[in-house]
């Protein structure tokens, strides 16, 4: 019996169309637009000016505060603007535009493809290297990694849990990275273990990636303290709290951090980025992005420079199909549909999903029939139908009592609702308002 989390969960059709597609490098575009806010926390402060010449990997914006991340140039060329640029949701965000001239990397980066297995840096040096490289959670949440590696005093990390679940349908970028960069990931995991003094690392991989599980098991047998944990296919297993419960069987209390049960969770993509940062001194300026969809000609996994327009990625996959209805940044469950496909790929873009008209059609919402399906699938043990009702009537205190802040916005409730009610839409609204209320109270 495979392990999984205890409460709720769904199993949507996997649709991993791009599984097994080798990672291809996307050609460098003529111009990149690098947003200053690609992470959770304060937007980075630019350290270059208009007209400056930058090299690939050069720091162009510095972390502003503790919860923030450095941003590096993904190309070499001239900074043409530091101005507001329309992002994927149509809103204006500050970004640095660089006109690409050539691809000259800064000399610090070890461009050699040679695999380096021996970690020479100390604990502090590793964390510093990660912070300098501007690494954020690559699963999509984009939480600055160095913050996670510095646990609050009094907490001790026992386990490092690596998220190789990729429970979102369609997405295959992590899967492909696991197949192609397993050795590097293991070294990355060892660096992370050293950084938090964890004695054990567990890699959680869902059972639909058997090749990755086998591949890792062969390598991990040679390494001490790393264990592979095959997991039952269940969404949202990639959620931090769900993964902790699935792998080590501990439950994180409401409002508490994973470190309270002695766990630190990192994504596979993050582990690979850590390897590159620690061993090769390479900052985070490119990532693997899945471009997929049922109508897409050639779904695939592409290594893209941060700031490349999404339209170019779509063009590489055979262009935008005629019956496109929505283009979604991320997976179908938690991703957001975008209205501007010229917006750039950021550190958190794990996939670009193109949905055709037939799939995108949303049913008309009908009345709640009190079937309780949403309650049974909620992985946080909440009552989504009630939260929705409270959010509609703006009863924020009641929402707080009903633990709306625990909601991980996985969308299982909306997925399962037979009345097609937009449960998550309202819960997210209520959650936002409740968060504001709590913040104002302090």
């Amino acid at each position, binding site marked *: 019996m495979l392990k999984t989390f205890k409460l709720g969960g769904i199993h949507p059709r996997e649709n991993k169309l791009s599984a097994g597609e080798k990672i291809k490098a996307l050609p460098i575009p003529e111009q990149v637009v690098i947003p200053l806010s690609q992470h959770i926390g304060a937007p980075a402060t630019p350290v270059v000016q208009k007209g400056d010449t930058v090299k690939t990997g050069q720091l162009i914006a510095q972390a502003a505060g503790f919860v923030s991340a450095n941003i590096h140039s993904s190309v070499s060329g001239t900074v043409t603007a530091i101005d507001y640029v329309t992002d994927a949701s149509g809103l204006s965000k500050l970004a640095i535009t660089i006109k690409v001239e050539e691809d000259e990397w800064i000399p610090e980066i070890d461009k050699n493809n040679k695999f380096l297995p021996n970690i020479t840096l100390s604990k502090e040096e590793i964390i510093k290297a990660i912070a300098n490289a501007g690494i954020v959670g690559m699963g999509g949440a984009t939480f600055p990694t160095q913050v996670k590696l510095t646990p609050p005093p009094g907490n001790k990390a026992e386990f490092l849990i690596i998220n190789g679940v990729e429970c979102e349908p369609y997405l295959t970028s992590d899967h492909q990275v696991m197949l192609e960069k397993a050795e590097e990931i293991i070294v990355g995991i060892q660096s992370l273990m050293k950084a938090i003094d964890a004695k054990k690392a567990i890699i959680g991989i869902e059972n639909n990636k058997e090749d990755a599980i086998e591949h890792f098991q062969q390598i991990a047998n040679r390494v001490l303290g790393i264990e592979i944990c095959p997991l039952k296919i269940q969404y949202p297993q990639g959620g931090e709290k769900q993964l902790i419960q699935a792998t080590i069987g501990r439950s994180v209390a409401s409002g508490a951090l994973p470190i309270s049960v002695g766990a630190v969770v990192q994504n596979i993509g993050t582990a690979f980025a850590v390897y590159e940062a620690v061993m090769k001194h390479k900052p985070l300026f490119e990532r693997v992005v899945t471009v997929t969809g049922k109508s897409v000609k050639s779904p695939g996994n592409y290594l893209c420079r941060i700031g490349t327009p999404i339209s170019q990625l779509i063009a590489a996959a055979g262009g935008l199909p005629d019956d496109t209805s929505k283009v979604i940044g991320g997976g179908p469950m938690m991703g957001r549909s975008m209205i501007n496909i010229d917006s750039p790929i950021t550190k958190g873009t794990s996939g670009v999903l193109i949905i055709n008209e037939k799939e*995108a059609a949303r049913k008309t919402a009908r009345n709640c029939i009190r079937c309780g399906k949403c309650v049974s699938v909620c992985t946080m043990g909440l009552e989504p139908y009630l939260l929705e009702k409270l959010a509609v009537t703006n009863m924020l205190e009641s929402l707080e009592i009903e633990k709306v802040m625990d909601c991980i916005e996985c969308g299982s409730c909306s997925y399962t609702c037979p009345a097609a009610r*937009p449960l998550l839409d309202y819960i*997210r609204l209520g959650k936002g308002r409740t968060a504001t209320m709590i913040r104002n109270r302090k």
Partner: protein
Amino acid sequence: MSTIIITIISLCAIGVVSAVILYFVAQKFKVEEDPRIDVVDGLLPSVNCGGCGYPGCRSLAEAAVKSDTLDGIYCPVGGADTMNKIAEALGREIKVEAPKIAVVKCNGNCDNRPRTSQYDGARSCAIQHSLYIGDTACAYGCLGCGDCVTACTFDAIDMDITTGLPVVNEKCVACGACVKACPRSIIELRKKGPKDRRIFVSCVNKDKGGVARKSCKVACIGCGKCVKECPFEAITLENNLAYIDFEKCRLCRKCVAACPTNAIQEVNFPARKVEVNMPKPTPTPKTVEKTTEVAIETPKVELDIKMTRVEEPVEVVVETPQVSTIEEKQVETVQVTEIETVPSFQAEEQQADAIKTEEIQAELAKITEALREENPELKTQEEVKTINN
């Protein structure tokens, strides 16, 4: 039989004892309340809309009784009438506020603001606003899901299905519920204005001119023409957006004409450029109205006022009083080249009329003087009256 009697007696006894207990308990735990609260509460409209800032009408009543000055206590639903009554009941003075009405400051209908995407999420402006820019290219404009309509407890806002924009009707009591509900702060409470006439910038777009214009044909582009045009310094320009202070605005409509994008809207004004033929028995001055002895006939003053744009001096042609006096008077044409006051359209009839009356009176006085010079015996009605008396 005795059972019945005993039952009745014992029940009565229990009743009496409980009544006594209840009486003393009621005396002991009596809640002292100012009787004026009930009075004030009775004067309030009892709609509990929360427009005053208090949870309900009774809370407002309690606050009003407690407060010494009634400062900051105002029932928008009841308005000046109610507040005057409350002030009277409490024996206090009150500053009466001008009645207000909710104004929707967006004119981005489908023609003016083309749709760029289709929103199929939950029908709520707040949700749409939190997700993305909205289904048009304007990040500030109306989203059209009708959160304001849902919030209104007075049935005063409807969605106009042809424009997709909310329309405030006369039922509005300015409680401000829609203002709070709108995630884009499009709705503002503004002074109702005389005869419900209002002028406001119907746009909240803070983008630079070019961007704003691209997303919407009737966006405020922050050109500042209205600011220059306004004779009362009522318009301010901030973040590429003009704002008309309704306290300072005198409804002259100069800004409306100056706005290159028609972002400034006028409401309830009659149509412009009207040829106005002033009615016959024009403000004929009393002085000359009916002359008895000398018989100056009522001068049939015919005014031919050509209403033009404000810049041009208005011509008031006073076609002579056709005075059939003893000595015949030739036709005189008086040209009034300047009417200094603002409103030069028929709309402001009353004010304009008053001004014109003055002008005419002055002219007639001149004429009378001239007549008198020629015929010193000429007497006005009033003089005649005094003589008669």
